[in-house]
């Protein structure tokens, strides 16, 4: 990474006081010319998948080959997810803050020439409002960002996650220093309690109460106490925690160190799923850098407080995101949950008091310590304070990473920030909370998105994935999809989960083939309740949620499958028929040429017909028809 900080890197020395930290921050800021151009390339997962690494390389090569004067020479910075994944790869040019979307390597020369040298924006690359066509110059102008309240994501997409100097410039580790030098551990716990922070992993258990519980357990049974980061985010459609870990790893680390100080822990673990190699790399680097500066390890900031942490990689099991399974996994045993009648703050990792919090929860801790519990609890709603990061995915225009205050309405998130469904029609449903969450219909669009409101509506906050569906998504198919996922991911320990999820999925398979009766729908509901009541861990007890909520809000669609043998959304292949509207068909023969069954016939320039008996309902004809003449019923 070319960060311009290389000169300072060699002067690395342990920081031994708060003044040291301030001095280093000042030194880094002063070493930079604020007018120097910076090319900031998004290296979040979405942009990387769209080739942003190639763009960075193209910039580096072009700059090396160019004859730009040294004083105009821009720096290049790569960052974590900048948020608006749908329009990636994203490149921002500072100090102007120009926001370029869908950049290609072939645009690089032009950007250097026009924007860097001539200081002019390139209209073509500016983000344009999909509805009005209006071009926005900077991030702050774009409605997607304007409507958000970015606290956790504040630095993500701005700082280079591999460079601790960038983080320190942005105020990193100030909260840790404040806690160490001005607060007692008890005051830190009290501050977290007062802030109302609730666990961002799904259940929303108050973090302060958890910490207090661990302190009480240590008092009762003795230590040691462990602090653990749950970075095993595995929900389909969720990438919040991954983005935080690879975009701002120091935030998680700082939160963890503050937690360790408050609880008296000497050892911490970061359990990160193996499928997040970038997060692991960046966290590892962050820890190394923090150790070099005396912010982690022995005698942190010369205060006598010592704490170190290690990364444990998951091995691909979704269930290891469940607290007790996560502990057994760290202990080196198979990731099977145990009943939590004795809470993990009392008997967690190796049977010792343990505080396990989600990545986003830990990342909230430095904010609370730095700005105070009163400031924090003024954001959001009374019983769900602060902000929440969501991943907007599915049938929504602005797919991406979003952060809003708790209690923001579903429609603000999906329709205003997300831009709504691409077709412009109202959304059909939103699945919140991943496979364990529930499906909320369009009628719930005014629902405030906070822990309690979502639970009351039959869904849950979960980790924060929001999958938007439109009229072409079949609820039976959606429930089946999530059940299949959980069936694969069940640990198999308890019978309701191991046997029940398979049998529920089989019933749904039958529905998608039109097999079943209204009695079967009732039975599915009863079996769902049995799994919900009977399963051992949260994976099992929450697994029926997608099924139960779709049954609650879209029962008609289930009935249509079994009684009328119809799939209203046109998804379940056994229940649909493709046909050609003779009035709209121009006889162009495009569909006939593409049909793998060769079952579309007709004379050129005359309406064609699909032979329904031979049709395999692959839908290629519908996709290729430019005249909207292929219909499904």
């Amino acid at each position, binding site marked *: 990474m070319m960060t311009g900080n290389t000169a300072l890197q060699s002067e690395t020395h342990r920081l031994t006081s708060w003044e040291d930290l301030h001095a280093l921050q000042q030194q880094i800021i002063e070493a930079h010319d604020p007018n120097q151009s910076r090319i900031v390339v998004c290296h979040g997962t979405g942009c990387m998948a769209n080739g942003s690494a190639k763009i960075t390389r193209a910039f580096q090569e072009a700059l090396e080959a160019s004859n730009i004067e040294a004083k105009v020479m821009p720096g290049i910075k790569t960052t974590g997810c900048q948020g608006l994944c749908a329009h990636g790869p994203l490149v921002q040019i500072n100090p102007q803050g120009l926001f370029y979307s869908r950049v290609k390597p072939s645009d690089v020369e032009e950007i250097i020439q026009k924007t860097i040298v001539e200081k002019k924006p390139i209209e073509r690359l500016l983000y344009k409002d999909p509805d009005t066509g209006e071009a926005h110059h900077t991030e702050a102008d774009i409605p997607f960002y304007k409507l958000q309240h970015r606290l956790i994501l504040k630095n993500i997409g701005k700082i280079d996650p591999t460079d601790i100097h960038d983080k320190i410039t942005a105020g990193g580790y100030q909260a840790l220093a404040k806690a160490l030098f001005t607060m007692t551990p008890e005051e830190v716990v009290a501050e977290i309690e007062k802030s109302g922070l609730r666990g961002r992993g799904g259940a929303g258990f108050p973090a302060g109460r958890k910490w207090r519980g661990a302190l009480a357990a240590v008092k009762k049974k003795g230590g040691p106490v462990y602090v653990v980061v749950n970075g095993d985010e595995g929900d389909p459609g969720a990438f919040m925690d991954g983005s935080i870990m690879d975009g701002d790893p120091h935030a998680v680390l700082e939160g963890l160190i503050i937690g360790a100080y408050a609880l008296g822990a000497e050892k911490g673990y970061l359990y990160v799923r193996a499928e997040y190699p970038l997060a692991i790399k960046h966290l590892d680097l962050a820890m190394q850098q923090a150790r070099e500066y005396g912010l982690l390890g022995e005698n942190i900031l010369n205060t006598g407080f010592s704490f170190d942490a290690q990364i444990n990689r998951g091995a691909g*099991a979704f*269930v290891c995101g469940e607290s007790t399974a996560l502990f057994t996994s760290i202990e080196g045993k*198979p990731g*099977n949950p*145990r*009943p939590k*009648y*004795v809470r993990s703050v009392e008997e967690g990792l190796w049977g010792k008091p343990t505080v396990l919090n989600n990545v986003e929860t830990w990342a909230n801790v430095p904010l609370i310590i730095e700005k105070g519990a009163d400031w924090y609890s003024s954001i959001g709603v009374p019983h769900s304070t602060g902000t929440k990061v969501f991943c907007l995915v599915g049938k929504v225009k602005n797919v991406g990473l979003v952060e809003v205050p708790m209690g923001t309405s579903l429609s603000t998130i999906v329709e205003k920030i997300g831009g709504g469904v691409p077709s412009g029609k109202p959304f059909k449903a939103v699945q919140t909370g991943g496979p364990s969450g529930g499906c909320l219909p369009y009628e719930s669009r005014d629902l405030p998105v906070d822990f309690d409101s979502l639970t009351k509506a039959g869904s849950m906050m979960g980790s924060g994935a929001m999958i938007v569906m439109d009229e072409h998504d079949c609820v039976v198919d959606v429930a089946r999809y999530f059940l299949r996922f959980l*069936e*694969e*991911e*069940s*640990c*198999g*320990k*308890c*019978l*309701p989960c*191991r*046997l*029940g999820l*398979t*049998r529920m999925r*089989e019933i749904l398979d039958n529905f998608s083939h039109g097999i079943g009766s209204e009695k079967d729908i009732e039975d599915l509901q*009863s*079996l769902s*309740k*049995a*799994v919900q*009541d*009977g*399963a*051992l861990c949260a994976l099992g007890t929450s697994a029926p949620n997608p099924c139960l909520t779709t049954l609650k809000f879209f029962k008609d669609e289930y009935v249509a499958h079994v009684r009328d043998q119809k799939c209203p959304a046109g998804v379940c292949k056994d229940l649909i028929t493709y046909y050609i509207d003779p009035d709209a068909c121009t006889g162009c023969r495009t569909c006939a040429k593409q049909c793998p069954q060769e079952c579309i016939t007709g004379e050129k320039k005359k309406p064609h017909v699909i032979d329904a008996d031979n049709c395999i309902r692959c839908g290629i004809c519908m996709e290729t028809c430019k005249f909207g003449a292929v219909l499904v019923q």
Partner: protein
Amino acid sequence: MITFQINDTPVEAEPGWTVLETARHYGIEIPTLCYHEAVSPSGACRLCMVELRDGDWSKLVASCIFPVAEGIRIYTETERIDNVRRWIFEMLLAEVPASPEIREMATQYGVESTRFSVKDPDEDCMVCGLCTRACEEIVGLSAISLMSRGVHKKVGAPFSRPTEVCVACGCCVTICPTGAMRRLIESVRETPEVTLTPLAV
């Protein structure tokens, strides 16, 4: 002593007892499959679920592992419990059709047939894990363990290959509630030098 209620009747338990231990002490029937006094409880079969009530609030807990506490109210026969048990039995009938023990138990709870498809008509192991706990906790060998995950979970020796670690003590066979271990132990022993016979009762 800890005093609490089971089915509205006051009961007393020693500290450290579970709800199941207390219920059995008082002769209150709660069905179990994966529970045995000789090994630690795992709470896997979920047949022993009981309802814990506090005012309007209630939840089902596994009695084999739920520690007793002063003043709690436990119910052993409710609609919710019945719903869980009946579905488990109906699914077990399809899962382990070769086990007469399971069939008999299911009949006792009113489940005599299953709507679900049978994968293997000869299957009699429902992976309750009593055998592996016995091997680990009583024998101290862990020659067998639970392998794989979810629907693929099964009992066996490491890498599904015969192992010399097994001493053919027969503990697993004795503790197995369906007799499946009589068949499975063949694949665990390196060379079956001893012929296992069912213990005379």
